[in-house]
């Protein structure tokens, strides 16, 4: 036995084990700290600072103290920071490959705080341009309503007007079509030629017939004339077809012309932004930018969270990582009391937002809700400045569908100085105000549906305006002590559509409309009159053209009928009949003579 076994090995194993455990115990906190800093810097692309890490082993609890994550877009600020985060980890489950956190508490979580020292940036942000363009887009929503109304004659002399184009086109088409018809008209038989044909046919009818040879002669002559009729009739039909085509073309163009003034007015309204004055969507103008800013923040959060959720969800289905170094994954099988691979049973965050402390509580935070059949719950509460409450729940199904819903409520919340809109013509900010509001939202996969109602009381505004209309707008807003705003958010989270309705619209509609309506109505009347004049002039031309066409059509029909009559003339039959009658008379006379001789 001693030949194969070395008992000293057991001592070595024991010493090695003690050494490893001892080293781990001594350096665990430093190792965990280094791991947190490295992985967070890789994830956020900027410097991450951790003041200290504390580990306690019974029960296993890890505390991270003084974490700061540099904002790579603004290195003087943090994306977020917290004073202390403590997580109690289930050791046994951790050894089995699962991260089950019984309780996670994060205190003094703050966003966008100023850093004591500018942080290093390792990855440049890609979303900056996108952000700017979205912000510009929001600002572009403020129409340049200070623009002067254009001169009516300038508008009406615009060669791009559809009315002008359509009337010119109608005139040109008529000229072309008229040339075509004239060319055909020259070829078709005129009245003189028709009279000559009639004379020729009549002459055939008056010819004396004494024998069948005479009939044949008449027939040959008539056939000869008929060939001429046919040729002429073909020309008449060709002309008739041309007239029909011309009529269709001109009818179509007249219809276009009739519709042109309406289209022109729409174009003028759009070009000179008269539309925005008429729609009176002032809520969108003033609050749209701010609302979009919040939607943008929500989208940022969604963009940050959704890949993590997707990755975690795919964790159980991805087969092999296509990388030079693969790390593998845990495969979890059915068990009596299944647990998700990552689960935070309870979470408590105390968040510092400006002067307000907000408490965020969460429970059952996981990406495998179907295993325990419980939804994740996230509640937000604050009583520092009025009341703020949000309750929400969400779950992911085994098939990967995301469902979420929530309600929120705000009561008596004093709003800080907030910039509402900033553009060349209008700067507006809310100095003070008392906000009440409530709303709800549902999320299904990446589609959001939310309705929110806000009520602002005791509001005071500040701002500058540089045009008549925006001055009026500013004065009206300043005079309002209270207003309501309803915001609807619908569609994909990445690109939702916003709908807004506000009492502000009603208040501003009257004032602005009063100011603008006289000028606008006068302008509208003049432009429409000018357009209608152009239309009627063009239509008059169209009417005379139509009358001319009708005359030509009647003439062609008459010619066609006359030619048909001549062609169908029974002149040969008549002459045949005459010959038969003559022969019958002759035979009768002969018979009478013979009978007289016989009985006479």
């Amino acid at each position, binding site marked *: 036995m001693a030949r*194969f076994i070395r008992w000293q090995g057991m001592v070595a*194993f024991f010493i090695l084990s003690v050494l490893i455990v001892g080293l781990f115990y001594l350096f665990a906190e430093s190792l965990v700290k280094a791991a947190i800093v490295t992985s967070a810097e890789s994830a956020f692309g900027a410097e991450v600072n951790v003041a200290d890490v504390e580990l306690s082993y019974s029960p296993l609890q890890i505390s991270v103290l003084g974490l700061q994550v540099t904002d790579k877009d603004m290195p003087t600020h943090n994306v977020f920071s917290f004073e202390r985060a403590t997580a109690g980890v289930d050791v046994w489950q951790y050894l*089995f490959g699962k991260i089950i956190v019984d309780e996670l508490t994060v205190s003094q979580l703050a966003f966008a705080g100023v850093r004591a020292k500018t942080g290093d940036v390792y990855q440049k942000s890609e979303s900056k341009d996108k952000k700017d363009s979205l912000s510009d887009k929001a600002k572009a929503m403020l129409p340049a309503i200070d623009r002067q109304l254009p001169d009516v004659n300038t508008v009406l002399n615009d060669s791009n007007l559809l009315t002008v184009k359509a009337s010119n086109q109608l005139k040109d088409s008529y000229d072309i079509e008229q040339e075509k018809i004239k060319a055909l008209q020259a070829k078709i038989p005129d009245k003189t030629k028709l009279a000559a044909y009639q004379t020729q046919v009549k002459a055939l009818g008056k010819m004396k017939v004494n024998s069948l040879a005479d009939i044949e002669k008449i027939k040959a002559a008539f056939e000869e004339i008929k060939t001429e009729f046919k040729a002429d009739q073909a020309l008449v039909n060709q002309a008739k077809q041309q007239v029909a085509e011309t009529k269709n073309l001109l009818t179509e163009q007249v219809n276009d012309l009739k519709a042109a003034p309406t289209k022109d007015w729409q174009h003028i309204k759009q070009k000179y932004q008269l539309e925005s004055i008429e729609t009176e969507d002032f809520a969108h103008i003033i609050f749209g930018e701010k609302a979009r800013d919040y939607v943008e923040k929500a989208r940022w959060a969604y963009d940050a969270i959704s890949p993590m959720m997707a990755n975690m969800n795919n964790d159980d289905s991805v087969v092999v990582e296509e990388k*030079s*170094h693969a790390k593998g994954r*845990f*495969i*979890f099988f*059915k068990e009596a009391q299944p647990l998700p691979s990552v689960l935070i049973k309870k979470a408590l965050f105390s968040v510092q937002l400006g002067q307000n402390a907000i408490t965020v509580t969460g429970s059952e935070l996981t990406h495998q809700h179907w295993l325990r059949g419980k939804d994740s719950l996230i509640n937000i509460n604050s009583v520092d400045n009025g009341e703020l409450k949000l309750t929400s729940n969400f779950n992911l199904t085994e098939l990967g569908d995301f469902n979420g819903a929530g309600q929120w409520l705000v009561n008596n919340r004093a709003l800080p100085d907030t910039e509402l809109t900033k553009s060349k013509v209008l700067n507006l900010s809310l100095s003070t105000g008392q906000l009440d509001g409530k709303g709800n939202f549902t999320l299904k996969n990446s589609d959001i549906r939310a309705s929110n109602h806000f009520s602002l009381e005791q509001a005071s505004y500040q701002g500058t305006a540089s045009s008549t209309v925006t001055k009026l707008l500013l004065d009206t807003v300043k005079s309002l002590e209270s207003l309501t705003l309803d915001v609807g958010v619908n569609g994909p989270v990445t690109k939702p559509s916003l709908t807004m309705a506000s009492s502000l619209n009603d208040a501003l509609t009257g004032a602005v409309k009063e100011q603008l309506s006289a000028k606008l109505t006068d302008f509208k009347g003049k432009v429409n009159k000018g357009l209608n004049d152009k239309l009627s002039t063009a239509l008059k031309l169209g009417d005379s053209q139509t009358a001319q066409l009708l005359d030509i059509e009647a003439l062609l029909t008459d010619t066609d009928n006359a030619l048909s009559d001549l062609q169908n003339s029974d002149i040969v039959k008549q002459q045949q009949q005459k010959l038969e009658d003559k022969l019958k008379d002759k035979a009768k006379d002969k018979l009478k003579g013979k009978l007289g001789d016989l009985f006479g």
Partner: protein
Amino acid sequence: MLTLLAKLLHALNSDSSIRQIALAIALGFIVGLSPLFTLHNIAIIFFVLLIRVHLGSFILAVGFFSGLSYLLSPAIVSVGESLLTQPALAIFFTSLYQFDWFKLAHWHHTYVLGALVLGVALCVPIYFTSKLIIEKYRVHIMTFFQKFRIVKALKASKFYSLYSRFSGESSFTKGGL
């Protein structure tokens, strides 16, 4: 501390036959392929320390095959993945999964299981191949290793002089390190 370790190594290296070196390489292969701190690795290390195998070769083999496992990781994961997701084996693994030792050993991890299966399957051919190579080329290999700068550096180190004092020059070179 170094004296203690050298004494220990001398005790452990006192008998280094070809079979002991080959077995050390084969076991080093299993340990090297898997992540170091897994249950089966701890058991193998205990076994290596307990039975008379050549520790130097074992440590070298672990180092070498750990590097190799980095390159082979896609294949290792692929083996583990195909075994653990094989529908025909689902009942088998589900029944094993009910035991805590199975989960503790992380055999439900694609990398760990893949490495263990590959390690166990290939350790036998590796044992015999190593044995054959050592038998035929032992002298050449020893010469080869002694040319290494690291060996020369080790020989010049305090640790080596301590080791030599306790084991004697011949036993160290005989050990193959």
